């Protein structure tokens, strides 16, 4: 019996590239390497315009805090350093490198000196950090930080190769073509964590990959390949942990809190490469597919390759796509620019036609069918979350545990009334988060200083910042969730302002929050209207 969880949806897989071997993209003329491709602080450029760089050379590093360094993925000359939006909708600096076509490997790249299977935890963390590896399933959490925070706490190590989203086959091909490297990576990580046993979770729609992996494990009893039921979102780490260990991981907790650590299979593969070859993360497998792409393919592409080049490599587009998505169809981000670069988290590029993305003719309306409740992997009541969010009753959303939502999109997928449930939930989540933060700040401000008359200028600042955020968000034409991200990023400033100011300014911050809520709401309403008028 395959392992699984309660809820979720079975959907058409569209894994059309499952039997297409990974093809290596010839070095593009130009690569564009964003300085922030991961969760954490952005990097600072270490090169300047006109510098010669080698393939694998460190070109951006994090000064302090959480983050991943970035490396040149081709050899050539730094053409410019500019500021643009990433596929995730954030504004970052990026380094444009003109390739010289020589693919000269940087002399800095050296394999680990000792036995890689006996590497000390410190050396492993350092090697992974230097290699700039971040989670390659899409979440892009810096891998070294995950290892460091989990050491000594975990009983289970799980490699996530479920790949539950439709269309994507990057991990599938990797398992078929490089099973030994994945197993080697897992054995290194098992040694680092001091674990005797490792698990690999693969959905049972990839029986060939399961066979390959089992062959690669050989007679060893140390690694078990677990068959997971093919169901979305089986690849969510919470659901994998639940399916394999029976433990439910609460929202906001990390897998390490329940003794588990989970890596994507491609991340694991790159951990091996970082130690065995000293190779930093400068290329990744991207599934380029969708019904608008002439010859869908799995491509090994240098980080920073413009998506337009990948599509060109696949024979171009059959028709104009209605939507270009970076990532999977369930959690990927719609793009407005075909020249965006491949980043460390880009596991797929989808060009979908109207057939997939057509908006319904009728205005959306919830018919109370309860299908969303049946599919929610977090056992929430998405219809009531959406309803209360639409009403603006965010307190009720909080009571209904809106913050437990992982935004997998199962509810909106199954909804016959075509309610944009996830959008409503994202709005509610951002408001609830803001409220909580404001409450916390108010408490801190109260505790730190006795009440004093507030200054208007300090009080106005947070509000102005919030408005700016919203403007940027609407310019970006991204959803409310993105607005929340930028608000989050901006928060340290707001926090400092509030800390230094009096209790009254914290009060004003609350007002600012309320304004944020209102304007976000009006944005949603606008979207609604647009959809209605269609």
């Amino acid at each position, binding site marked *: 019996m395959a392992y699984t969880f309660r809820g979720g*949806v079975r*959907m058409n897989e569209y894994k059309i590239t499952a039997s297409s071997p990974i093809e290596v993209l010839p070095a593009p003329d130009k690569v564009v390497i964003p300085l922030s491709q991961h969760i954490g602080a952005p990097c600072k450029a270490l090169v300047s315009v006109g510098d010669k760089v080698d393939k694998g050379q460190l070109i951006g590093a994090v000064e302090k805090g959480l983050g991943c360094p970035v490396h040149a993925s081709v050899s050539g000359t730094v053409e410019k350093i500019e500021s643009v939006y990433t596929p995730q909708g954030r504004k970052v600096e990026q380094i444009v490198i003109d390739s010289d076509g020589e693919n000269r490997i940087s002399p800095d790249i050296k394999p680990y000196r000792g036995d890689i299977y006996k590497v000390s935890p410190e050396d492993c963390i350092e090697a992974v950090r230097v290699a700039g590896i971040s989670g390659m399933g899409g979440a892009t959490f810096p891998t070294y930080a995950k290892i460091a925070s989990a050491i000594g706490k975990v009983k289970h190590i799980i490699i996530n190769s479920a790949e539950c989203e439709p269309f994507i086959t990057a991990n599938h091909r990797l398992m078929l073509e490089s099973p030994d490297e994945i197993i080697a990576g897992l054995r290194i990580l098992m040694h680092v964590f001091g674990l005797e046993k490792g698990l690999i979770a693969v959905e049972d729609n990839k029986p060939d990959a399961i066979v390959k992996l089992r062959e690669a494990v050989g007679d060893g009893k140390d690694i078990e390949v677990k068959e997971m039921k093919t169901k979305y979102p089986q690849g969510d780490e*919470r659901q994998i942990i*639940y399916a394999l260990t*029976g*433990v*439910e*991981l*609460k929202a906001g*907790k990390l897998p390490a809190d*329940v003794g588990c650590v989970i890596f994507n299979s491609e991340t694991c593969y790159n951990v091996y490469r970082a130690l065995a070859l000293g190779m930093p993360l400068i290329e990744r497998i991207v599934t380029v597919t969708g019904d608008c792409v002439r010859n869908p393919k799995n491509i090994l592409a240098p980080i920073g390759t413009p998506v*337009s080049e990948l599509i060109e490599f696949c024979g171009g*587009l059959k028709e*104009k*796509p*209605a*939507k*270009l*998505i970076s*990532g999977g*169809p*369930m959690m990927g981000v*719609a*793009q*407005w*620019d*075909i*020249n965006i670069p491949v980043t460390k988290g880009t596991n797929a590029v989808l060009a*979908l036609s109207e057939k*997939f*993305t057509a908006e319904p*003719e*009728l205005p959306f*309306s919830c*018919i*109370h*069918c*309860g299908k969303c409740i049946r599919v929610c*992997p*977090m056992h*929430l*009541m998405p*219809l009531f979350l959406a309803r209360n969010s639409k009403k603006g009753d965010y307190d009720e959303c909080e009571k*209904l*545990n809106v913050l437990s939502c992982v*935004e997998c*999109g199962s509810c*909106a*997928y*199954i*909804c*016959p*009334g*075509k309610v*944009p449930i*996830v959008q409503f939930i*994202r709005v509610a989540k951002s408001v609830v988060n803001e409220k909580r933060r404001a409450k916390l700040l108010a408490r801190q401000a109260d505790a730190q200083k006795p009440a004093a008359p507030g200054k208007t200028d300090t009080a106005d600042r947070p509000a102005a910042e919030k408005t700016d955020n919203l403007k940027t968000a609407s310019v970006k*034409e*991204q959803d409310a*969730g993105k607005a929340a991200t930028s608000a989050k990023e901006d928060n340290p400033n707001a926090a400092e302002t509030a800390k230094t100011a009096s209790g009254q300014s914290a009060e004003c911050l609350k007002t600012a929050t309320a304004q944020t809520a209102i304007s976000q709401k009006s944005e949603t309403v606008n979207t609604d209207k647009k959809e209605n008028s269609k």
Partner: protein
Amino acid sequence: MNGENQSLMALSPSPHVKHKNTTQSIMRDVLIAMSGAFVWSVVVFGYMAAVLTVLSVLLCVFYEFAYQKLMRKPVTVSDLSAAVTGVLIAFNVPVNIAPWVLVFGCFFAIVVVKQLFGGIGKNVVNPAIAARIFMFVCWPSEMSSFFKADAITSSTPLASIKNSVIPDYTVGDAFFGFIPGCLGEVSALLLICGGVYLLIRRVITPQIPLAFIGTVAVFYLALSPVGTPVQSLGYGVFTGGLMLGAIFMATDYTTSPVTPVGRIIFGVGCGLITVAIRFLGAYPEGVSFAIMIMNLLVHYIDKATMPKVFGMRKQKNG
């Protein structure tokens, strides 16, 4: 690859793909599920059954269209929900009803019960049930003179049971549909077939019909009002509006709970009230009142049966 291609790409948040189910496709399935009972009504009651059903559908669709036009709302008649309401209202009247009664009944269902409460998904009571009760209260004689195809007035099996008389019809008649009654409710067999179709198409879940019919069945078996317990069970379950109500009306999404446990509570509640009215009340039939009363409680049932959120329950080693 640049320029015009880019400007036409849609930006919207995930998920980017949707299931093919729509409100319209679900309502179409409900209509298909009811088609057997419709054909049978024409066979048993003659062409007037078809006339009444078509009239009722047209009236409901017209009222919805007219209301939405008048209120400058987007017109949503193509979601077929008004058509389903129309068929259900026709299924709930006897064949010899004066057609003008439907003019009022459909108005009450669509305008008063559905649209004034906000339209699809927002009504508190099932429109067809409300219309049935409305017509029943306003025109009791129109609504309860049952003819059979041979145009002889006869009392329904439930009315006979009410008077502690063994009905003129056998349980088999009731099951296959050779009894007097409302248009859509006479053939239990065809209604069950429709229900099975809805289950296979995953339009409904089995909790409500099973809990509803099961509860009623238990009481008939235990109390055995006429003949043997098994005979009572047959009459109690296969006659009157129970099959139609339990399969097609109590399962209406908008006016039934969303959680599995809630649906069982709802079904049992419907069953208990039906039995109470049939055994203790003044009316021979109580299905529609039972459903309407339970409709009013849906909000509270939903709240009381909220599922435990993932990670929030007590764990062995968490």
